[in-house]
């Protein structure tokens, strides 16, 4: 393998390259095979206190292979795309497949299940790389400068950034599926640090992330919002241990939806390692809860024309007025549960397909966030959560938190160094208000929600 990697030429990797890997695997004795190729480019710029601190620009590509022999499966991946590298990719997988077990549920999807949505779903815009380097730096600088100028108490900063990335992925298998998808993204962010007269420091951040440069919020608005979020934390205090209504801001409410994504993941369901396992068709939340998973939205952060196994993505309710109506499944977990794949397979370079959500959101309600807060005599508006305090098996939920105290329907003072705890089984029944403010800042999105019956642990 001397100088193996230097023989790769720079021409674009084609779908034929990927189908050829599949063919090579079949020739080597695989009963079925699936190959994936992915490549990405990234540009990152970080400006701190007005000066460029980091510039990064790079690209990489790699291939992965999954083979089947009978009902046994194994996978390999490599960043060496030379003919020697691909030979090793194939021979490695064929050697490895000998050690795995016969599993009657393993295998590629049936041919009639394959498909992809038409068009590119507006996932790729070449304008993310259209700015010359100096203007990218200027975006980052303006974002940080707007935050720094917003308040005299902001004298330090973690920086302002402009990042852009593009990626391309090709998936092909021995049952005839070939698909290609391109994606782009870009973002600006600021992380100001504010200091109170007693020397206490607080940081927060804000960002705008989009698939196209033209869709980004202005650097000035992002910087201003970052500053507003930071200075409102100054002077934060602990509050006593108590039970009061909690209002989750959208940024933290979405983490509760993230926990539901984990709890309806087919892998957790077939192993009974989820509090929602076996609950299909049952009421698991309040009638006011309808949760949608939709991989088909144009330009969505969770959109794709096909899933990680070559099945078309789709739109479905996973919770319909509180009733659990769908899990998130790939082919394997669907077969284990005697169900159909929901088109939620995810595919990295190595390993068996995982499961991921599409655009996953709670359907918005009628009230504005201000109206939700106004109805609460005493409670906590949660703006930040830290830690990994969700147990999907039991539903137990316990997180470090900070936010603002609600007094007579208004935000009174900042709160920190407390925890908020409950159990997701009960929390899903105790959501008392849902805001109208659904905004997709990532694949999982949730409007402002109020939850009753949780415990604050503090002083």
């Amino acid at each position: 393998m001397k100088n193996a990697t230097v023989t790769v030429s720079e021409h674009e990797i084609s779908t034929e390259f990927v189908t050829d890997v599949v063919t090579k695997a079949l020739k080597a004795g695989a009963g079925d095979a699936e190959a994936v190729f992915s490549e990405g480019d990234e540009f990152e710029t970080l400006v701190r206190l007005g000066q460029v601190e980091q510039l990064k620009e790079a690209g990489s590509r790699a291939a992965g292979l999954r083979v089947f022999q009978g009902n046994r499966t194994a996978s390999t991946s490599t960043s060496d795309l030379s003919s020697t590298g691909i030979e090793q990719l194939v021979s490695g997988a064929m050697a490895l497949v000998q050690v795995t077990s016969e599993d009657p549920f393993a295998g590629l999807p049936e041919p009639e299940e394959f498909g992809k949505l038409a068009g590119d779903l507006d996932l790729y815009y070449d304008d993310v790389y259209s700015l010359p380097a100096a203007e990218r730096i200027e975006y980052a600088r303006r974002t940080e400068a707007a935050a720094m100028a917003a308040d005299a108490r902001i004298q330090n900063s973690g920086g302002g950034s402009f990042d852009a990335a593009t990626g391309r992925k090709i998936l092909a298998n021995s049952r005839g599926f070939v698909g290609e998808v391109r994606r782009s993204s870009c973002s600006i962010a600021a992380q100001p640090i504010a200091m109170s007269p007693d020397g206490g420091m607080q940081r927060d951040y804000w960002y705008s992330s989009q698939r196209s440069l033209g869709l980004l919020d202005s650097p000035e608005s992002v910087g201003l919002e970052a500053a507003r979020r930071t200075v409102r934390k100054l002077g934060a205090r602990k509050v006593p241990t108590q039970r009061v209504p909690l209002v989750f801001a959208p940024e933290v409410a979405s983490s509760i939806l993230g926990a539901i994504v984990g709890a309806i993941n087919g892998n957790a369901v077939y192993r009974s390692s989820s509090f929602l396992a076996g609950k299909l068709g049952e009421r698991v939340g309040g009638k006011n809860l309808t949760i949608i998973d939709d991989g088909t939205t144009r330009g969505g952060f969770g959109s794709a024309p096909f899933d990680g196994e070559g099945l078309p993505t789709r739109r479905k309710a996973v919770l319909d007025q509180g009733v659990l109506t769908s899990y998130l499944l790939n082919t394997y977990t669907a077969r284990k549960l005697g169900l159909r794949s929901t088109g939620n397979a995810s595919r990295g370079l190595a390993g068996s397909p995982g499961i991921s959500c599409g655009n996953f959101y709670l359907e918005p309600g009628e009230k504005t966030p201000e109206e939700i807060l106004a109805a609460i005599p005493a409670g906590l508006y949660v703006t930040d959560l830290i830690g990994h305090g969700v147990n999907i098996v039991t539903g137990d939920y316990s997180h470090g938190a900070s936010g603002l105290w609600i007094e007579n329907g208004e935000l009174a003072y900042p709160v920190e160094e407390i925890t908020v705890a409950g159990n997701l089984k009960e929390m899903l029944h105790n959501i008392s208000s849902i805001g109208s403010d659904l905004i997709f800042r990532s694949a999982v999105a949730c409007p402002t929600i109020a939850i009753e019956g949780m415990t604050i642990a503090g002083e």
Partner: protein
Amino acid sequence: MQPASPDTRKFFYEHLGINEQLLEQCLSAALSAGGDYADLYFEYVTASSLMVDESLVKSASQGISAGCGLRVVSGERTGYAYTDDLSPERLLRAAHTAALIASGPSKQPVQGFRESPSAGLYTVASPGSDSETSAKLALIQRADRAARAYDARIVQVQASFADELRRILVAASDGSFATDTQPLARLNVSMIAKEGDNIARGSSGGGGRVLLDFFLTDKTPEYFATEAARQAVLQLGAVPAPAGEMPVVLGPGWPGVLLHEAVGHGLEADFNRKKTSAFAGLIGQMVASPKVTVVDNGAMPNRRGSLNVDDEGSPTQETVLIENGVLKGYMSDKLSARLMGIADTGNGRRESYQHIPMPRMTNTYMLAGEDDPGDIIRSVQRGLYAVNFGGGQVDITNGKFVFSASEAYLIEDGKITAPVKNATLIGNGPESLKYVSMVGNDLKLDEGVGTCGKAGQSVPVGVGMPTIKLDKMTVGGTGN
């Protein structure tokens, strides 16, 4: 100390077409627009993983990843480019891209490389034979059997074995040159216990920069499987965790994740250079009880967080962070050392060639004290005894940190009583360790499971601690 392994250098030179002249050309290109320093980080990683689930070998995978990261530093600025194509043309192009960070007359790198010696902290096996794969498989099948044999209530078992071999070569414009071959292995077992409608999970695992033998002699699959099964069955009977401030006793070993979150991150030099850490400017001040001494030590044999050289090619070492309660020093990489005028402590680490190095922890632990662990428990009227944890997180600017207890008990009248459900503990880094009133004589390091995330980069780390008592900490349960 022993001479660096000539085999690693030979690997890069013979298999990947690297040579000294090419390294010098790339460094010259990197400094073509000026700058203070440039370095090249070549990496070649082979990784494999096996998983048994429902007593079937459901997954087997292996991968190869190779590439080079090129960095140019000019004052506080860093330019970075990477490529997974190691041809001279691509390497030189990446060097010119990284060079764009600087704007001045070109500089020349130091002529000739001085290779760092290796501390020989770990041994390397010849990689990847088929018999090795079956030996690994036998390990996780043993774990699966041991878990199922533990208790009839264990209904689901997953056992996995993951290992990698990372070869690195670092060459810098200051003439420093280092190579290392770093093994890393981990066996993991997780399971579900079920009794009626009551379901609980348990998990355990460990490893380090060790060979397969470690799992046959030191820590066997049965050891980890039994431990995970014990936790799962125990959790079936857990009561709600208490809520509020109370005395907390932390058991030895993995609960040292407290140190990692409460003080470790806040003492990484980059945050202090930028004065964004709650610990900035506190050197020489009391930040913990006089009973507390905390070190970071990357030079321990076979530990998960250990390295012969860090990812900038600098030797690792033991660094005292807090001595008898007084803040002594920070963990540093080359950039922070130069800008702050402090020593490079060998803490410059990165996830891969695609990432810019920064100060990171290695193995972070508290030294043993004099108290008997039993006395520590007996001293608590009403509180929490936590012995196992999931992950943690810290906001280094306001110092607030959390870590989540996965196995904990109530302490009532000096005795350990009911197991409690998962709960997050929260505290304030520069304050929490001042409440440490007792330190046990039973220092233990963790089993080798830690992975630390910072700025989107993950690296393996270790933690350790004796049994300690904190007079107060906030416990985030739901009970009374």
